[in-house]
C-alpha cells in the first residue's frame, strides 16, 4: 500500500498520466462536439489512426512538427466530411456509416504507410515535440515537473478543452450547435442551418480526434506502428457518456482514466509475474464498460442524437 501511495505522489507518475491522457482528451472532445450536434461518430478509431499516421508522415517527409499537426487535422476533417455527408444530408445509419469510415480510415492509413515505406520493418523515427517547462511554474514540487513540463502539443490540447467549452456555452455558434443536437426542427425555425451546423461540428470534431491520434506519434512516441490506436477511439466514445457531454468533465474523465491506466502499468511492475500481464491490459477496457454501466442511468443523451433530420419531415 505504502508503495502505491508513494507512486501516486511522485511527479513521474503524473507526467505519465498526462501523457497517456492527451489522446483521450482530444478524442473525447472531438466525439463530444459531433454528438452535441446530434451525430454519433463511430469513425473515431479510423480518424485517429489516420491522424496518427498523417501527422507523423508529414514530419518524416521534412515538415516541421506544427505542420504535421495541421496535416493530421486536415486529414481528420476530410474523413469527417465523408461521415458528415453520409449521415447529415443523406441521413444514413450513423452506426454503419461510422464503421465504414473507421474501416476506410484504418485501411487507407495502412495502405499509404506501405506505399511510402514498403520495406520498413522497424518503424522509422522522427524528432518529436520536446517538453517545454513553463518558467517559474515548473519549479513547484510534483505539479511543476508533471503539469507544467509538458510538450507544447499537450498545452495546446488543454487550451482546446477551454476553447471548445467556451464556444459551446458562450457563443451563438455553440448555442446553435447544441440546439441542432436537441431539437433540430426548432433550430430550423430560428433560421439556423441544421445541415451546416451538423456538418461543421462533425468536421471540426474529426479534426480534433485526428490531432489526438497525432499526439501519439508526434509527442508521446516518435514513430507510427500498425494497430497503434488499439481501441483508444472506442474508449473515447465511452468517455463522452461518462462526461455527460461536457468538455470539462471530459478532461476530468480522461485524466481519471489515464490515472488508472498509469497505475495499472506500475502495478504490473510491482506485482510482477504473479498475475499474467494481459489481466492488467484488460483493465482499461473493462473500466470503460463499468463507467458506461454506472453512468447509463444518469446519461442525458442529446435528444436528437442519431436521429437524421430531413426538412419538413416528422
Amino acid at each position, binding site marked *: 500500500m505504502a508503495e502505491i501511495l508513494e507512486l501516486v505522489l511522485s511527479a513521474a507518475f503524473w507526467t505519465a498520466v498526462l501523457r497517456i491522457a492527451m489522446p483521450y482528451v482530444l478524442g473525447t472532445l472531438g466525439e463530444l462536439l459531433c454528438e452535441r450536434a446530434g451525430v454519433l461518430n463511430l469513425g473515431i478509431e479510423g480518424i485517429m489512426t489516420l491522424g496518427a499516421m498523417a501527422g507523423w508522415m508529414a514530419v518524416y517527409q521534412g515538415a516541421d512538427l506544427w505542420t504535421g499537426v495541421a496535416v493530421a487535422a486536415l486529414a481528420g476533417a476530410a474523413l469527417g466530411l465523408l461521415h458528415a455527408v453520409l449521415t447529415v444530408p443523406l441521413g444514413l445509419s450513423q452506426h454503419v*456509416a461510422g464503421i465504414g469510415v473507421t474501416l476506410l480510415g484504418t485501411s*487507407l492509413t495502412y495502405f499509404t504507410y506501405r506505399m511510402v515505406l514498403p520495406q520498413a520493418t522497424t518503424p522509422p523515427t522522427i524528432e518529436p515535440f520536446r517538453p517545454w517547462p513553463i518558467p517559474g511554474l515548473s519549479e513547484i514540487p510534483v505539479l511543476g515537473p508533471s503539469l507544467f513540463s509538458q510538450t507544447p502539443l499537450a498545452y495546446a490540447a488543454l487550451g482546446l478543452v477551454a476553447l471548445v467549452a467556451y464556444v459551446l456555452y458562450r457563443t451563438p455558434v455553440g448555442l446553435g450547435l447544441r440546439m441542432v443536437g436537441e431539437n433540430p426542427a426548432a433550430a430550423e425555425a430560428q433560421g439556423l442551418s441544421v445541415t451546416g451546423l451538423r456538418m461543421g461540428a462533425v468536421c471540426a470534431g474529426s479534426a480534433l480526434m485526428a490531432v489526438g491520434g497525432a499526439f501519439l506519434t508526434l509527442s508521446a512516441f516518435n514513430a507510427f506502428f500498425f494497430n497503434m490506436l488499439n481501441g483508444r477511439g472506442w474508449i473515447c466514445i465511452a468517455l463522452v457518456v461518462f462526461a455527460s457531454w461536457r468538455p470539462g468533465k471530459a478532461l476530468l474523465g480522461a485524466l481519471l482514466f489515464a490515472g488508472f491506466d498509469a497505475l495499472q502499468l506500475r502495478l504490473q511492475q510491482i506485482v510482477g509475474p504473479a498475475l499474467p500481464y494481459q489481466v492488467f491490459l484488460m483493465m482499461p477496457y473493462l473500466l470503460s464498460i463499468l463507467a458506461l454501466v454506472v453512468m*447509463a442511468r444518469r446519461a442525458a443523451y442529446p435528444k436528437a442524437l442519431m436521429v437524421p433530420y430531413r426538412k419538413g419531415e416528422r
Partner: protein
Amino acid sequence: MRLEPRASVPLTLGLLAPVGAVAAALAICAALVAWSGASIPRAYALLAEGALGSRLALTETLTRATPLILTGLAAAVAFRARFWNIGAEGQLYLGALVAAWLGGGLLDLPGWTLVPTVLIAGALAGSLLLAGPAVLKTRFGVDEVVTTLLLNFVVLLFVSMMLEGPMKDPMGMGWPQSAPVLPEAELPRLAERTRLHAGLILALLAAAAVWVMTARTVWGYEARAVGGNPRAAAFAGIPVAWVMVRTALISGALAGLAGAVEVTGLKGYLTLDLSPGFGYGGIVVAMLAQLHPAGAVAAAVFVAGIFVGSDAMSRGVAVPTYIADVIVAVSLICMLVATLLVRFRLRKG
C-alpha cells in the same frame, strides 16, 4: 435536389444496388492502384484470376468465405432487430478458444459426437459473450455498440493469456498457440489437395436456417418489428427486451460458430492471428447483402475473393495487400449510398 421515397422498390433495383456499389468501389480504388504505378486492367485481371481463376483459387476463396458467411449472418440477424453487435470478432475468438480447448483432448467422446459437441460449445461461448451487452442494454440502457467493441479487445487479451498460459502447446516451440485438436474433432475436407472443408456446408445450412427464421417464423417477424419501430412493437404486445436478448444470443452463436469452424475445419489449432478481421468483415457482408441471408453468402464470397485475389495481385504488381481492406471499406460506403438510391429517388427542386 431532394429525396423522394419510392412507393415500391423494383426487385431488379434491389439486386443491382450491390453490383453497382461494388463496381463503384473498384473504380474508386483504381486510383490507389494507379498510385502504386501498376496498370489498372492488369492489376484487376490478376485480382480476378487470383480469386476465381483456378480450382485452387476458387477453393481458397470459398474457404475464406466460410467464416465470413457466418459473421455476416451474425451481423445481419442482429442489425435486423437494430441490435448493433460490432463484437463478432470477440465472439469468434471465444468460440475458437472453447473449440480448441474441448477439441484438444479434454473431451473423450466418440468421433461422431465430438465434432458437434465442440461446434455447439463454440457457438454457446459466442452466445454467452454477447448476452452480457444484450442484458446491459435491455436492463440498464447501456449502449451495445461500445460494450461489444470494447469486449473484442478484452477477449483478444484473454485468448493471448490462455495461449501463453494454461493452453500453450508444449510442442509449439515457444509460440503462443494451442495444442492441435484431436483428429476426430476435425471437420472433413471437401476436396482433395485443397483447404476447403465441411465448414462451408455448415455455413450454408446456417444461412438457410436464418432465412427460414427471419422470413417464416414468429421470432423473425418479432425481430423485424422491433428493428422497424420498437415503440410500436411494444404496443403490439411484443416483448421487446426478450426479442433483443434472443436476437443477440443467436447472433453471438453464429459468430462463435465461425471461430469453432475455423479451428476444427481449417487451422486445427488456435493462434492470435486466426481471424484477419472476419468479425468486422461480417458487417460489410451483411450490409452488401442488405441483411438478406442468401445475399450474405454471395457477399461473403465477394469479400473473400477480394482478399484472396489481392494477395495474388500484390505478388504480381506490388500493390500493398491493404488494397483489399480499402476496396472492402469503400464497397461498404458505396453500398450505403446505393441503399439510399434504392429507397428514394432524386428529384430536382
